[in-house]
């Protein structure tokens, strides 16, 4: 009995960082960044490379690029996923990464984790047809299928804990200040 649980998450490093940051709160201040360039129509290209954290400028090992657009049913050219779909990607990926980290910390071996997301919205909002309809999602439903070496209750607890500590879950479910300026 007893085998090494490996979900590929370096939990020791995370726990060590947690301890270190308790005594150096300023180092925990991170600034994440994205840049976006309009291409044509509703097609834009966003890139992510540099961010700030642990007291200094950091950089991803390469520049990541995301093309976004609107689909043909919006009379557009469909050169990329819509921005609202990218938000679902953000939520799904944050929760999924969280599940892996919590599972590692709790000694649960994951075999597979898959999520399907659905965000419902009525476009009367974004088209300005109906002032009572919001621009954003009315609700987002996330369905996880987790195959792991654990009871159903333990898996539910895993998914619950991932939400509890998820940055994107917090960003979406709670108000966030956004300021936009033109320079």
């Amino acid at each position, binding site marked *: 009995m007893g085998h090494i649980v490996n979900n590929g998450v370096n939990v020791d490093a995370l726990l060590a960082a947690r301890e270190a940051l308790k005594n150096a709160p300023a180092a925990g201040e991170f600034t994440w960044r994205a840049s976006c360039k309009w291409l044509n129509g509703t097609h834009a290209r966003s890139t992510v490379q540099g961010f700030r954290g642990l007291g200094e400028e950091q950089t991803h090992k390469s520049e990541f690029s995301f093309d976004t657009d609107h689909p043909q049913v919006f009379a557009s050219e469909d050169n990329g996923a819509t921005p609202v779909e990218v938000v679902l990607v953000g939520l799904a990926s944050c929760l999924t990464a969280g599940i892996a980290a919590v599972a590692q910390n709790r000694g649960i071996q994951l075999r597979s984790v898959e999520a399907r997301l659905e965000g419902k919205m009525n476009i009367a909002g974004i088209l300005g047809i109906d002032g009572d309809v919001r621009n954003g999602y009315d*609700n987002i439903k996330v369905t996880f299928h987790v195959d792991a070496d654990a009871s159903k209750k333990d898996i539910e607890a895993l998914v619950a804990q991932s939400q509890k500590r998820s940055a994107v879950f917090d960003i979406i479910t709670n108000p966030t200040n956004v300021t936009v300026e033109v320079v």
Partner: protein
Amino acid sequence: MSRVLTEHAIDHVVLERGEVANSWRQERWDSLRLLTPNWLSRLPGYAYAGPDPDGFMNLPEVVNFIAGYADETSAPVRTHTTVTSVRSVEGGYQLATEQGQISCRSLVLATGANNSPRVPDLHRAVPQTVQCLTAFSYRNTDQLPSGGVLIVGAAATGVQLADEIHRSGRPVTLCVGEHVRLPRTYRGRDILWWMENSGVWNQRYDQIEDLERARRLPSPQLVGTPEHSTLEVNSLSGGGIEIVGKLAAVRDGRALFSGGLANQLALADLKMERLLDTFDAWARDSHIDSEVGPVERFAPTRAPPSTRLSLDLRSGEIRTIVWATGYRPDYRWLNLPVLTPKEELRHDGGVVTESPGMYALGLPVLRRRKSTFINGAEADARDLAQHLAGYLAVAPPVPFP
């Protein structure tokens, strides 16, 4: 502590800013009852001796219980003696009080962690037309105008007040964030019988994996009623109280609630189940399964598929907000570098190691999970009095001017 110090023949005084049991007399709402059953009201050499051991004392009964203990133990209490500052001097401490200066070699802070209500900064954005009360200023429903009440916080205070205010006929909206769900009774016994006897309550602070988290846990959703009723989100929502997510912001006169309520409800249900599993395992291992009722599990908390995300505080729908958002200690009079950046006392199991001869009692999970309950005081007091006596035995006495 006084009673235990007397046993050690350690000369001491007890300073009280008001009358004995001041907080119970001045800072609690009228209908409050203990959420611990009376048989748990035990102090060194003293216990509840009334006719209803399984019941829950009301406010006047609690005041009598504590004042009775002070009398019976002849505690050397100086009432109406507010401490306005504490300084460290050679050999001990110098206290300034409204009755004059007091010097001592050793000091025990028994002021608790609930000296003032904790109200989030966003309360400043609430429109002036809405009356705001806290757990300290709320006394009974007569203070409230008719109309809707928004209760922020769903720990013990929040759920108790939500229930009471809703029964007064007012529409209640309750903001629920992180909370601890517990049934009042389990397998025929009070839930706190399980806490006490299974050893969960006795778990020591130095055996708890995430002590800071344990010390920050909200008080459980429990109430003491003659019916031994369970107070939980399901019964509140079933009775017509609107449950919304945690109050996240007040913007342009609108209260904004979290859309993450469902997970908070799921987390509390899961935590309760883990605790009941622990109790069942203990009952099995202690061979007492036949002495208690059969294993039970409780209905999961119903989370509506979508909950209200905002409420216009200018519309008149809400006439009052009750902030049941917790309490904090007040150490403004303690002029010593023994506080954390968040102004909480730094201590190791009640020993203020940075200030020799100083101790604290009655703080959350001070030494055990039961430290903040009446029945938790004795064990902590005995441990700390032992340490204090040892300190006095070796610390050089300094004659005071």
